[in-house]
């Protein structure tokens, strides 16, 4: 008798519990989304990100965003993929746009198209600059949404230009002018040692990216859109590399591999009159250059051009559908024009959409500080950042070749041919 009633009570409680969970929960636990972000610019970025998270959570009380700072871009992807392989990836993360193929191959991310259902959403996805979308789309699907993007620009020391007898407001517009200007700008001291180099293009960190500032103007595209084939041994590519090596041979460019991290400082110390570096350095250079400087588009040859760079938002596959929807909302919110504009002003990155540049804040900023608009103006001639399947490996082959040519260990032709062979071997499986 006791047992039966006991069982009855159990059954009823089970039904009740089942019933309760079936009811739409009024006090539902918030959907938690973890969000990995890299820190690629100095300054209190963590605070800005936290501010975004708080602002979003205020407007969306059912969602909890946990921003997790994850180191450099390289460390962030290590962290994200390690977590993914262990079954607990972040829900969303900002990662390099060039990581797209790697993430797809690891089956780690889902395309944004599945979430963009309304017309408004589709319009939002189309609102970004096409140059940025080149590294975000493949196979007809959109895998990344631009967030902190940049291009390579040329900075020049106006004072040094004046000293050398050049027009300080006119930047070299093509290769011939660049070489000529650099020759005039190179200064030697009493011992014959160079005290100021005419032009400096870094080759450490991401040599391939800076190399693209030379191949693009020469009309060469290094990788195809599907990321399955590369063209390193194209004569135009070798020509571009030869130009770079020749700058060194002519004594107007520092010998060997130039360090990326110290290039801005070299500029401040007047050790280099012209440097190629990311637009993300603009705020830093503005603050610390003790002289008037100019910012201009990368000199062209047969055409003008520069690669894009920086990070996109991705949504991870192993998160629940609810989490992914919440993440989609967050990504949409953060890339709205006002916020994109604010982010651009705070960090120096290019604002990711035309609408952002049309906001009052960015209009004012651009009027006060025109160099901030150079990167945007370069976008129509900007190309995708080099990216393929097995990206890191193929990129390393290219980087090694570039460094070999710049240090004189190999001729440009040999270096590029070797790199091509290596890349073909790696990409064999992806064709």
């Amino acid at each position, binding site marked *: 008798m006791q047992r039966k009633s006991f069982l009855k009570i159990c059954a009823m409680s089970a039904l009740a519990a089942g019933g309760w969970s079936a009811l739409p929960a009024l006090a539902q636990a918030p959907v938690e989304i973890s969000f990995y972000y890299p820190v690629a610019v100095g300054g209190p970025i963590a605070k800005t990100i936290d501010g975004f998270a708080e602002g979003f959570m205020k407007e969306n009380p059912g969602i909890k965003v946990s921003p997790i700072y994850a180191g450099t871009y390289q460390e962030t992807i290590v962290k994200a993929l390690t977590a993914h392989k262990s079954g607990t990836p972040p829900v969303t993360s900002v990662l390099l746009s060039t990581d797209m193929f*790697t993430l797809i191959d690891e089956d780690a991310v889902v395309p944004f198209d599945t979430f963009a259902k309304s017309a408004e959403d589709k319009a939002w996805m189309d609102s970004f600059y096409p140059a940025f979308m080149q590294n975000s789309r493949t196979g007809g699907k959109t895998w990344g949404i631009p967030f902190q993007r940049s291009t390579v620009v040329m900075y020049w020391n106006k004072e040094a230009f004046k000293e050398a007898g050049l027009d300080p407001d006119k930047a070299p517009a093509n290769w011939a002018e660049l070489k000529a200007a650099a020759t005039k700008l190179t200064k030697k001291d009493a011992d014959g*040692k160079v*005290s100021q180099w005419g032009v400096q293009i870094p080759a*450490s960190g991401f040599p391939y990216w800076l190399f693209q500032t030379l191949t693009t103007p020469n009309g060469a595209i290094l990788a195809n859109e599907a990321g399955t084939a590369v063209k390193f041994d194209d004569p135009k590519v070798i020509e571009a590399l030869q130009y770079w090596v020749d700058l060194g041979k002519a004594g107007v460019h520092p010998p060997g591999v130039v*360090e990326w*991290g*110290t290039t801005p400082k070299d500029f401040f110390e007047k050790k280099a009159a012209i440097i190629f570096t990311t637009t993300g350095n603009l705020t830093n250079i503005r603050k610390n250059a003790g002289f008037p400087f100019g910012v201009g588009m990368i000199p062209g040859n047969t055409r003008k051009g520069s690669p894009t760079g920086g990070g996109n938002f991705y949504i991870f596959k192993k998160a629940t559908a609810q989490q992914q929807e919440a993440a989609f909302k967050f990504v949409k919110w953060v890339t709205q024009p006002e916020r994109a504009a604010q982010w651009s002003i705070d960090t120096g990155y290019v604002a990711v959409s035309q609408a952002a540049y049309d906001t009052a804040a960015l209009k004012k900023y651009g009027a006060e500080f025109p160099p901030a608009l150079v990167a945007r103006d370069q976008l129509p001639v900007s190309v995708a950042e080099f990216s393929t399947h097995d990206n*890191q490996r193929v990129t390393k082959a290219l980087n090694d070749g570039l460094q070999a040519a710049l240090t004189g*260990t190999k001729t440009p032709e040999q270096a590029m041919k070797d790199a091509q062979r290596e890349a073909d071997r790696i990409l064999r499986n992806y064709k």
Partner: protein
Amino acid sequence: MRTRAVHAWLMLLPAMLLLVAFTHWPALSTFVDSFHSTAKAGRPSVWVGLENYQVMLEDPVFWKAVRNNLLFATATIPASIGLALAMALWVNERIAGRAFLRMAYFTPTVLPMIAVANIWLFFYTPQYGLLERLTGLLGLPAHNWLGSPSTALAAVTAVAIWKEAGFFMIFYLAALQSLNPSLREAAAIEGASRGYFFRRVLWPLLMPTTLFVLINACINAFRMVDHLFVLTRGGPDNASILLLYHLYEVGFSFWDTGYASAITVVLVVLLAGIALFQFFVLDRRVHYQ
């Protein structure tokens, strides 16, 4: 006897459990992985036998890493131990200002690697870097230390020696200070020279410390790659790449877990060889009191 065996196993258990869970099992899993291909989306991992090892043997970057690492080890091990011994001997004597000396030698250990690496980056920077200024004063030509294949490895080796020597000094110092002072007095009475005293008395008595320090130095020779991330990233063109760094690249950049496992196995075998050699060969010759 049985209860004693049980006692022994109980005392051993916590350590063994943790070792198995976090070292042996993952290591075994890595060993097994080295015989499988890397899993990718849509292509699960399959048995490939020795293919990963073949790839490794044909990879010029791997051989460069091996060569560089051996050079690196050959330079750092004797240099850091030798300097540590010299430092300890000096600090142990009545040299003026030895408290300062002691602190100066030990500071590299306390500074975090990220800071250390960036400071050395400044030292090696062309034109206005500290080293360049010094060589400029001496009238030597300008040089791009980190950006030239000929000097990149030497440059990172110097940083490693700098970081290690002071750390080993402490052990030698302790050993020296625990020696019986009457030994010195006896040697003085007998008129033995400093060199003789060092060779015949100090060095043999310091052997246990040297063995201890040697093991650490050997392991570190293969483990110290953090500074590479800041200084050269293995470049230019792999001139300064080391095995563990190559392993990170393959394992965490390329995510080629099959190949990375093969390199791991090689690294482990190499270190095992060194450790066994030290344990069985050198340990015999060490003079324990």
